């Protein structure tokens, strides 16, 4: 789980050009990365490729924090 979380935050910081050290598990990634729902879905696609999983769009509906997103991914690996 912590591996997934680290990889997820690495990927998000790189994709949206946000300093990695400013991100933490409980952050609202919409706010922290300053992204909209379409960009969040795009991040989800990159994560799927990274972890070789598939997550339907609707599963992102109530997800706001890196922690929660990492849990979602971990449940699929």
């Amino acid at each position, binding site marked *: 789980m912590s591996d997934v979380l680290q990889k997820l935050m690495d990927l998000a910081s790189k994709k949206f050009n946000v300093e990695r050290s400013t991100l933490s598990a409980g952050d609202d990634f919409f706010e922290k990365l300053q992204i909209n729902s*379409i*960009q969040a*879905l795009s991040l989800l*696609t990159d994560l799927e490729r990274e972890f070789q999983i598939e997550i*339907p*769009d*609707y*599963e992102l509906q109530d997800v706001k924090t890196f922690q929660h997103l990492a849990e979602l991914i971990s449940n699929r690996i």
Partner: protein
Amino acid sequence: MTHLDLHRFSSLQEALHTFIGMHGSSIALIEADRDREKVRMDYVALDEITKKFSMNLVHRIGKNHARMGIIMSNQSKWITSAIGLFYTGGTLVPLDYKLTPEDQLKLIRHSQIEALVTEFPFWKRMKTADTDGILEKIHVFVTEAPEKESFSGKTYRWESMDASNGDFALIPSTRETVACIVYSSGTGGTPKGCMLTHNNYLSQAQSLSELYPIDQDDTYFSFIPTNHAIDFMCGFLLPLFFGSKIVHQRTLRPEFFASTIQTYKISHMALVPMLLKTLEEKIRTKLKELPPFKKFITNALISINAAVTRKKPWYGFSRTLLAPIHKTFGGHLRLIFAGGAFVEASTAQFFYDLGLPVVIGYGLTEAGTVLTVNDLNPFRANTVGKPLKITQLKINNPDNQGIGEVWVQGATVMKAISMPMS
């Protein structure tokens, strides 16, 4: 281009039944999930499944004229369920699948629906939040449930249709009958149900079809959900009236957007401004990344295209001149409908200069899809266009800058409003 005459119909179901019956083996619906095609259905199969759903609905509920909600993402069963309901003379309540389950349940209670069609994950989420058991009291048709899942009481697997009870009968409605109750938060923020009649929809479809006729060979890309007023009109009713194809993409991810447009040779699509802006940024980034000489040439070609098409679009010319850009859009894209929020003039102009006209509309749920729409004679990016022929608009008590409340009268204005939610 086919001329559409909807004046002879008294209801949506009559029009849909007639047009669906006319197009035989032409493809009606395609559903893709990412790069996988899940459904391909011709008009014969559409006719069959919609009738089967209507018979199943009457069999389960025990009557015609029911009020039914749909909570679904972009997919073909949204359309087949809606048509099946209309065939029974029923009233449709399209609900937003992106709402929280608590809000969905509130609207289910408020709208007093007797039946609901929803996807398995949404049903599961609502079940967990359903403290007063409203889902047990209504008939629920659940799509795509896992094999191991069993249903009881008034909850059924959508795919297990029981149409053995009698023959198909098309139940008529008058033009003044309510076809849909559409929830809108409006500018006031309090959700209210707008009761839109068959006449509202048929009038809107007639006027839009005269402005922007579709051809039987055209393909509409349904990218925004069908509960959205624009998609309901442009991505459901109009393509089926014209006998053209509708392509649904289950995911809203930009990564699968281009591949769907290319694969299915999309000619028309509707986008909300946020998606249009995302697309613009992606294209601008790609143009910036071109090597200097190529960038210079491309920008010059875009300027030539903008100058040549200033008075009206010239699709063949734009597609030839800007072939690599048009190839990204599959080479067949003719119109992008945009609405639902403010469309930046610079964005609309950017696409028009590429040879991809953006049709900007202004409307509100209370008056169907659009009240005004810009035409392409010539294209103007900074306007929402003129009122439709069937609509009269006035700015009431304008201030010295011409700003005031918009008053509207016309055939698309709703019949009534259901009581606001407390």
